[in-house]
């Protein structure tokens, strides 16, 4: 393999119902930074059916080039035609780096592509840099420059590892949503749009979609919330989320969220779950009520700007990440806290 | 010589522990408070084969040894004394006499559904006037044609009302004394078999303790268990095994109380230190732990003895029960003390554990009876 043949930072521009997902824009933002370090270009891969009109948006968020694969097979996301399309782009254009969002789609698609084209893939990255591999020179071993260094948490965020793919191309990664910053939109930007025939062919890996059932969600995305009041096992039941947490969240202009225990045991909707198998959040304020703080949960919230935890058990791991940890009974504290916050806000309104 | 559990036993213990933590512990406080029989837990245990652990596979059981069953009772008792005794009475007191003394027909008809958990079992020996002195049976059974006719009253019967199959003892010939006692299998729903008072108790309050009343209760002739006049021997053999179940219950209560107390003293602060930092606490915990461990060794030895081909003389099971029961009282009482005022209120598990522990010094042979058995063996 000749590494020099592989050029450009490619981004899979995930779209759902012909609307480009936010994660695609975040990836473009990061790709731009990487491309600047490498002196190469940012290329978006846009797949779908009647999808061309979305290409301009990708340009406005940083794509220098957009490769469009427009095909009826690509209308709804399916593993095999999407894998074929991306793999064929890779064979044709030889990218240096390919990034996917670590979404349900990205985490299905990227490993299939990596297996097909035989390269490495790093899952769920939270940091991407260009640098040397090995990171510190080892005598007798060649130091490769301008490698993609991919940092990811493992063990539910208990450890971090930095991964490189020195001997294979492209270097592939999935990137956790909500971590990378998208660029400010530039409506003047233009990209070179290439329509690519990916030679899609039906095979035994094509599956039949009998039905697509969309969930109607009544919930504001907790990843967008500036303040989260979150409950866990200590909430005891679903009703208590409404009774104790909702009023405080409303006063603070925030949302209610939950640990996995609340979802599994009390029937809190999965959309509100914070953590490894839920969502990663980074609000300005995270109030954890009755959450013990399993590492899978901490992985999803520890980057919050300010963490306040209320828990009866003073040895609860949540206190290891909390800026302020209060040992006590949430059912006694939260109602009084809610009342005091209300009074403070009223005072402020008078001033 | 090796004190380590086999891989199989270690995995079985993990299973029982997981089941106890996930399915039994959450209900322990509630069934105690409401004095409610844990039917839902019994149904779950039935599905997993827990109601037939020590019964051979050919009779629908799991085919495990007595130690495995003992460990199940122990793990259940760590979180709920009630659930442990439901299993112990079912297994030791109802299945075992049918397994050891029943005919092939009786085993097929009664033991198989008991082992599969389709039915629940109980044991009726104690009477208002015949407790420790079991030979003073007043309940009578008279053969009338092809049927035995039972008259009399049994009391303090664990799993009463909820059980489907009862092993009942009655006098068939008063003139022969204890040699005139016989054992019978009686089905719930037999005309003339009714339930009297449900006892309200200090502990194991979710366990159903009923009076059984027999009024001209007619059962088929073939429901005689063992030989005519063999009842007392069957009862003693059964109680010998039953004591291991109760010893395991006592052991579990002690271990459970020690566990929650260790957790508690690490978090509770007084005078700016956690309780665990005080030497008094450490010494108390050490004493509790040593007794738990000693009790476990005695109980496990008794369980292994139970499976030996040579008939046990009752020594190891009596020693296990005596020591485990007194350990349960010792440890739970200390546990309450270390919890202070919180230990005396219902929100804390140790309050229930101490109440549950007391019965283990009383039923299936009081501590005094165990001492009698032990001394008798020493002096013979």
């Amino acid at each position, binding site marked *: 393999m000749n590494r020099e043949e592989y050029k450009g930072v490619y981004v899979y521009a995930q779209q*759902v119902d012909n609307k480009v997902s936010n994660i695609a824009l975040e990836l473009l933002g990061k790709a731009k930074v990487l491309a600047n370090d490498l002196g190469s270009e940012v290329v978006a891969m846009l797949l779908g059916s009647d999808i061309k009109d979305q290409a301009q948006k990708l340009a406005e968020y940083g794509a220098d080039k957009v490769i469009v694969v427009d095909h009826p097979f690509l209308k709804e996301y399916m593993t095999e035609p999407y894998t074929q399309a991306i793999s064929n782009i890779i064979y044709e254009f030889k990218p240096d780096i390919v990034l996917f969002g670590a979404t349900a789609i990205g985490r299905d698609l990227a490993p299939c592509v990596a*297996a097909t084209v*035989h390269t490495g893939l790093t899952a769920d990255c939270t940091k991407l840099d260009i640098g040397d591999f090995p990171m510190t020179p080892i005598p007798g071993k060649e130091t490769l420059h301008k490698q993609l260094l991919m940092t990811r948490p493992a063990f539910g965020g208990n450890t971090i590892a930095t991964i490189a793919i020195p001997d294979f191309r492209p270097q592939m990664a999935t990137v956790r949503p909500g971590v990378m910053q998208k660029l400010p939109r530039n409506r003047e930007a233009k990209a070179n749009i290439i329509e690519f025939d990916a030679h899609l062919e039906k095979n035994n890996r094509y599956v039949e979609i009998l039905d697509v059932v969309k969930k109607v*969600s009544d919930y504001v995305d907790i990843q967008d919330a500036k303040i989260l009041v979150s409950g866990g096992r200590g909430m005891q039941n679903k009703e208590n989320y409404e009774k104790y947490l909702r009023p405080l969240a409303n006063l603070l202009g925030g949302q209610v969220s939950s640990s996995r225990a609340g979802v599994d045991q009390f029937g809190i909707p999965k959309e509100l779950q914070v953590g490894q198998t839920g969502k990663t959040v980074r609000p300005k304020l995270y109030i954890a009520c009755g959450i013990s703080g399993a590492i899978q949960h901490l992985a999803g919230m520890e980057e919050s700007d300010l963490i306040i935890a209320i828990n009866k058990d003073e040895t609860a791991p949540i206190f290891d990440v909390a800026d302020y940890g209060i040992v006590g009974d949430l059912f006694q504290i939260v109602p009084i806290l809610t009342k005091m916050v209300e009074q403070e806000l009223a005072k402020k309104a008078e001033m | 010589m090796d004190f380590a559990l086999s891989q199989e036993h270690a995995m079985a213990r993990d299973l029982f522990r997981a089941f106890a933590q996930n399915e039994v512990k959450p209900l322990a406080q509630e069934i105690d408070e409401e004095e409610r029989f844990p039917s839902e837990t019994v149904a779950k245990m039935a599905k997993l084969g827990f109601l037939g652990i020590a019964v051979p596979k050919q009779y629908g059981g799991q085919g495990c040894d007595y130690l495995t069953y003992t460990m199940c009772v122990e793990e259940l008792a760590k979180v709920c004394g009630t659930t442990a005794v439901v299993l112990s009475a079912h297994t030791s007191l109802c299945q075992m006499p049918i397994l050891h003394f029943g005919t092939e027909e009786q085993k097929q008809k009664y033991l198989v559904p008991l082992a599969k958990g389709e039915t629940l079992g109980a044991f009726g020996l104690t009477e208002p006037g015949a407790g420790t002195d079991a030979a003073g049976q007043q309940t009578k059974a008279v053969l009338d044609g092809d049927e035995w006719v039972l008259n009399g009253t049994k009391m303090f019967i664990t799993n009463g009302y909820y059980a489907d199959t009862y092993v009942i003892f009655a006098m068939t010939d008063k003139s022969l004394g204890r040699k005139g006692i016989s054992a019978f299998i009686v089905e719930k729903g037999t005309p003339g078999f009714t339930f009297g008072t449900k006892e309200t108790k200090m502990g194991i309050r979710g366990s159903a303790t009923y009076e059984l009343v027999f009024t001209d209760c007619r059962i088929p002739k073939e429901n005689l268990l063992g030989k005519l006049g063999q009842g007392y021997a069957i009862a003693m053999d059964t109680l010998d095994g039953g004591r291991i179940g109760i010893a395991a219950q006592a052991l579990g209560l002690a271990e459970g109380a020690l566990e929650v107390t260790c957790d508690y003293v690490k978090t509770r602060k007084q005078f700016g230190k956690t309780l665990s930092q005080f030497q008094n606490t450490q010494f108390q915990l050490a004493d509790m732990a040593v007794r738990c461990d000693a009790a476990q060794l005695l109980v496990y030895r008794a369980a292994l003895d139970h499976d030996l081909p040579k008939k046990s003389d009752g020594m190891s099971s009596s020693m296990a029960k005596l020591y485990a029961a007194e350990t349960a009282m010792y440890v739970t009482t200390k546990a309450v003390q270390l919890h202070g005022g919180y230990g005396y209120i219902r929100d804390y598990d140790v309050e229930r554990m101490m109440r549950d522990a007391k019965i283990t010094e009383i039923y299936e042979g009081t501590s005094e009876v165990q001492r009698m058995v032990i001394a008798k063996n020493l002096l013979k």
Partner: protein
Amino acid sequence: MNIVVCIKQVPDTAGGVKFNPDGTLDRAAMLAIMNPDDKAGLEAALRLKDEYGAKVTVVTMGLPKADAILREAMAMGADDAVLVTDRVLGGADTWATSQTLAGAVRALDYDLVITGRQAIDGDTAQVGPQLSVHLGLPIVSYTQKLRIEGDYVIAERMFDDRHHVLKVKMPCLLTALSELNEPRYMTPGGIFDAFKKEVTVMGRKDLVDVLDSNIGKVGSPTQIAKASDKVRKGAGTQYIPEDATDAAEYIVGKLKEKFII
């Protein structure tokens, strides 16, 4: 119907994480359990067995001590167990792992291959999809419901905002979510039986159609540049209030300090 379920022994993350000096995981130093998503996959297979009749074979790649989860799987109801273990397979990334598993699965009869979505140690969710590519099987990731209709699997595939109902011809591969089901307990008798059964041990030579260049550390495209325990942000202040009002006042004070209210 033959069902192969791939399971993995993982460190219980409650027990802490340890590394070898070269940056690979020191698995020997950690408590080991069956990965939760894999257990859901096994439960799914056992339910198909209960409903339609099937032979369920569990396969794991790992150290000899992974025998424990194979016994556990058999105690839950799996019929056969395969341990893939060999020194040359160590240090594998998801590419090399999926190549190895494919080599083992090829040696077995299968109509359905089930894996968990992801393991709690690596959290990559890559082995299942990559295995499907190597075996040339259609894949349903994130299966949350399934049934069999003749030669077809009807499965619900969960995505963030929707699910697809898919019809897939067997042989095929499914990855299971722990939401798929509540795994059953072992049975006591099942445990004792499980230890009486033989576990098939496969080494490098037993793998079918796998190149040396695709297994173990040598066959892994990804390499660890740096591994470390994560430095958590330092714990803040822990406050033990006198009562609930004191606690609330303390929090309000902090919120004002940070200009949140």
